């Protein structure tokens, strides 16, 4: 929960604590029986909506040498194919055990995560033994619901154990952040039915078909819920057809809207001309070498891009990235742009941009670290950033300019001195935590693995001279007896492993 934005209430994560409270409340209101015939008719497919209980072990970025915090929660999922349950990624992230229960049954079925896509907050589960589910219908994925139409949210939210149904109206279709990864923006549909903790991963139905997966709420507003709409679901399902999930692809550019008349004049745009300004092009991305800063992007795949960077899809105005969103690695996209008033055109092959992962919350991964002389070093990630509340402006700068200033090209990891285990060897160094390590004995630090080898050379130097960004006083560790010192520190502080550098 620590990593999530204030605005969004991620439903599964909040449940675990919330579910402990409302025992008394549940007795106040009698369970609602579906008396409406339309509801009764639909209820056949409620059978395919299951409750998911998860035991998690969440890595502690503040203490990466520890195994993590045991926790858990519940969410919802639904059957979409033979032994294929769809749910939210955040329901089953960092899970150690997943258990599925059917509506009206007490039996717990052990399940596994088959595919998980943190960037679009979706996951596929399967149970060890599907026989009990054989007769259940599969939910079909429908279309994007129209504004003002009614939808039904099914799930197991807080406030009781049985299935819950709420109705709402589609109130907005927008391109919004997905709070699970914190870095991704995709299409979302906002409905006025409250989506509560436990609803996560549940289907949103219209005319008996799935039009979305309930996934997040808004804590600053009442009666707003968000669901993942079908284009995102379909993309996910198509992506995993080959047996593995690839990341979303991106153009690797940033745009600036051209509203200002003076700016339009400079770029030779009349009032009605389409196009958005290219403000940055990242290295090693599809558009690197194709687009330049100052180009005006006028169309994507022939769809005109307006001056705010939007396009029209199915009668709705959405961010132009929606075109790229629906494509996969290796797909092509056609760019129309003007450069110095001259119309140009190009086709680029899309690929993911791994460096941008630094801005995404990481799950199901053990934090990497290395410890030398009681100094703990960790690579910068959004998880670490949030866990430590990094305030050093130099480090903040390195982080936020990591992709836009191509820092990742020379520093695969921004390595941070995160903690100092007090020991005579590092007396006076505790005040330097939170700094980024620039070099060790004159060699620039490029990654945590490389730093680890710099700090554990075959021949131990007299001193390890560790220099940090923006700090003129180097941090000095003696080479002499460093192995004994390390052993002493590990023993004193109960550290099992001196480093974890990834698989």
């Amino acid at each position: 929960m620590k990593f999530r934005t204030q605005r969004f209430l991620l439903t599964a994560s909040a449940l675990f604590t919330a579910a402990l409270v409302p025992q008394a409340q549940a007795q106040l209101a009698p369970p609602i029986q579906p008396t409406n015939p339309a509801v009764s008719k639909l209820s056949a497919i409620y059978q395919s909506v299951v409750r998911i209980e998860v035991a998690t072990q969440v890595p502690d970025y503040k203490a990466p040498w520890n195994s993590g915090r045991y926790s858990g929660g519940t969410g919802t999922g639904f059957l979409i194919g033979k032994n294929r349950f769809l749910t939210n990624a955040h329901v089953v992230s960092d899970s150690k055990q997943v258990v599925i229960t059917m509506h009206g049954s007490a039996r717990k079925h052990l399940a596994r995560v088959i595919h998980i896509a943190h960037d679009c907050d979706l996951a596929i589960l399967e149970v060890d033994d599907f026989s009990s589910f054989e007769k259940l219908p599969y939910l079909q994925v429908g279309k994007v619901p129209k504004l003002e139409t009614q939808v039904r949210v099914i799930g197991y939210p807080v406030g009781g154990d049985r299935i819950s149904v709420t109705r709402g109206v589609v109130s907005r279709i927008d391109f919004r952040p997905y709070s699970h990864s914190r870095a991704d923006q995709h299409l979302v549909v906002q409905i006025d039915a409250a989506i509560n903790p436990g609803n996560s991963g549940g289907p949103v139905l219209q005319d008996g078909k799935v039009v979305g997966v309930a996934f997040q709420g808004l804590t600053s507003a009442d009666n707003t819920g968000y669901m993942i709409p079908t284009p995102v679901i379909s993309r996910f399902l198509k992506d995993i057809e080959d047996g593995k999930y690839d990341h979303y692809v991106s153009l690797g550019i940033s745009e600036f809207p051209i509203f200002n008349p003076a700016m339009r004049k400079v770029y030779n745009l009349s009032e009605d001309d389409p196009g958005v300004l290219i403000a940055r092009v990242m290295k090693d991305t599809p558009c690197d070498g194709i687009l330049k800063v100052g180009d005006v992007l006028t169309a994507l795949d022939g769809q005109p891009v307006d001056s705010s960077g939007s396009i029209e899809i199915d009668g709705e105005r959405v961010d132009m990235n929606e075109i790229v969103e629906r494509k996969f690695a290796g797909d092509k996209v056609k760019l129309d742009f003007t450069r110095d008033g001259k119309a140009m055109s190009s086709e680029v092959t899309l690929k993911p941009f791994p460096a941008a992962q630094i801005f995404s919350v990481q799950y199901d991964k053990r934090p990497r670290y290395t410890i030398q002389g009681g100094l703990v070093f960790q690579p910068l990630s959004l998880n670490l950033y949030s866990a430590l509340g990094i305030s050093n402006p130099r480090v903040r700068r390195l982080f936020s300019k990591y992709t836009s200033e191509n820092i990742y090209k020379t520093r695969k990891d921004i390595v941070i001195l995160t903690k100092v285990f007090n020991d005579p060897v590092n007396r006076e160094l505790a005040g330097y935590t939170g700094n980024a390590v620039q070099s060790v004995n004159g060699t620039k630090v490029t990654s945590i693995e490389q730093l680890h080898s710099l700090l554990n050379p075959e021949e131990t130097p007299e001193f390890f001279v560790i220099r940090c960004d923006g700090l003129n006083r180097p941090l000095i560790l003696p080479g002499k007896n460093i192995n004994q010192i390390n052993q002493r520190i590990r023993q004193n502080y109960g550290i099992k492993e001196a480093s974890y550098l990834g698989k």
Partner: protein
Amino acid sequence: MKFYLTILAAFSALTVWVSAEVSVLRVSSTLQSYNISQPWEKQAPYNRRGLGVVIGKNQILTTAEMVANATFIELQTADGEKSIPATVIAVDYEANLALLAAKDPEDIKFIESMKPVELATPSKLGETVQVFQIEDNGMPLLTNGIIRGTDVVSTFVDGHFFLNYEIKAAMQSAPNSFTIPVLKDNKLAGLLTSYSSKDQLLDATATEIISAFIKDAADGKYVGFPDLGVSIVRTSDENFRGWLKLTDAQGGVFINRVQRNSSAEKAGIKVGDVILKVADSAINRRGYYTSKNYGELYWSHLIRGTHVTGDEIQITLLRDGIELVKQVKLERPIEGIIPSHTYGKAPRYMIKGGFVFQELTESYLKLFGDDWKSRAPMTLLDALNHPEDYEKGKKRLVILSRTIPTKATIGYERIRATIVTKVNGQEIPDIPALIKAFKTPGENGIHTIELDNDIEKIYLDAETASKVEAEFLQQGLPALSRDKE
């Protein structure tokens, strides 16, 4: 006992309270600072009351806090019956001292009739002093205190450290009482700068600092205290010492940063040098030296408190394990691109079509709230921490501080708090240069503004901007720019 008699006698002898021994006046000032978020206007004025000590012919000593951003200063007799408008003749914000004078010939005569308070000899630890307050009815209120220690601290402007006495006294805490004199045998020993009623401890600017200030101001041209222009870290870390090749007999402080154009830079002192000695005083590994009067004192007092601007001193350094001596001429520091304070200065600014341009100051960053050190824009914070990375070709750091939505700034509403690199192709070292650069838009009648931002170049229509600016003036903005501080 003897002491009380003196004061009481003095009091009953005069109707307008002027002690034969202690000539103290009330100081009442109206302070008004600029509104940093709208630099063309000032904030609501407020009042600050304190005391001043007559220390010479028409010279009244008080703290800089009493006069910083003052629009009106008035002296009053202890009983409040006579009021005298005053002006500032010298002020040192760093040392927190100011010298006032009356303007009107009649008033000057009145003040000159008061016997100036002499400066005490520098105090010693354990000496008894008296804290002098005035009650509402004009009665003096004296509290005995003991000098328990000395410390080199900053009392008004962050980062400027001066010798202060630490006095233990059960002083009565009175509201709005700035600048309370501390006396020794009816002579001025210090000026109170802070008081903790919980610990009953007060800090007072030491006699030698006051004395140096008065001496400097005597010729009417105040210069200020010298500065070496370095920042240091201690060398108590054994491994660090080993790497620096410091012997156990040596102390030393490691130079972390050398300010541009500073006394240190001119003398060839470099980052990475270790200061072992200043003149004849050895600096220990925590940055202290042994002073005759006060015992252990922080080394910066050797520069700022025992020398005046223009003095030459010898500094012994350790560089790469070798001792070397540098002759240093102590000067006033040249202001960096982000000034350490802006008291007594009007912020320079320019409004262009709705863009507000300012020079970056710490007061601007403080607009981002109590936790500004983590919330303010990181590039600006980084510039504050590492001016050396930003100062090339610049006198100040000009920023586009905010964008007022207008016809001219459509589409730019979100741009704010970003460093301006060029305007119409010209470098921007300060606001006057910016004002000049905006005089020549491109041939197409469009201004080009280059920023250190996600969007590197933005454009502004010169004609639309002028129209908007005329509207601003109509709406009551006093001026579109200020080029003098």
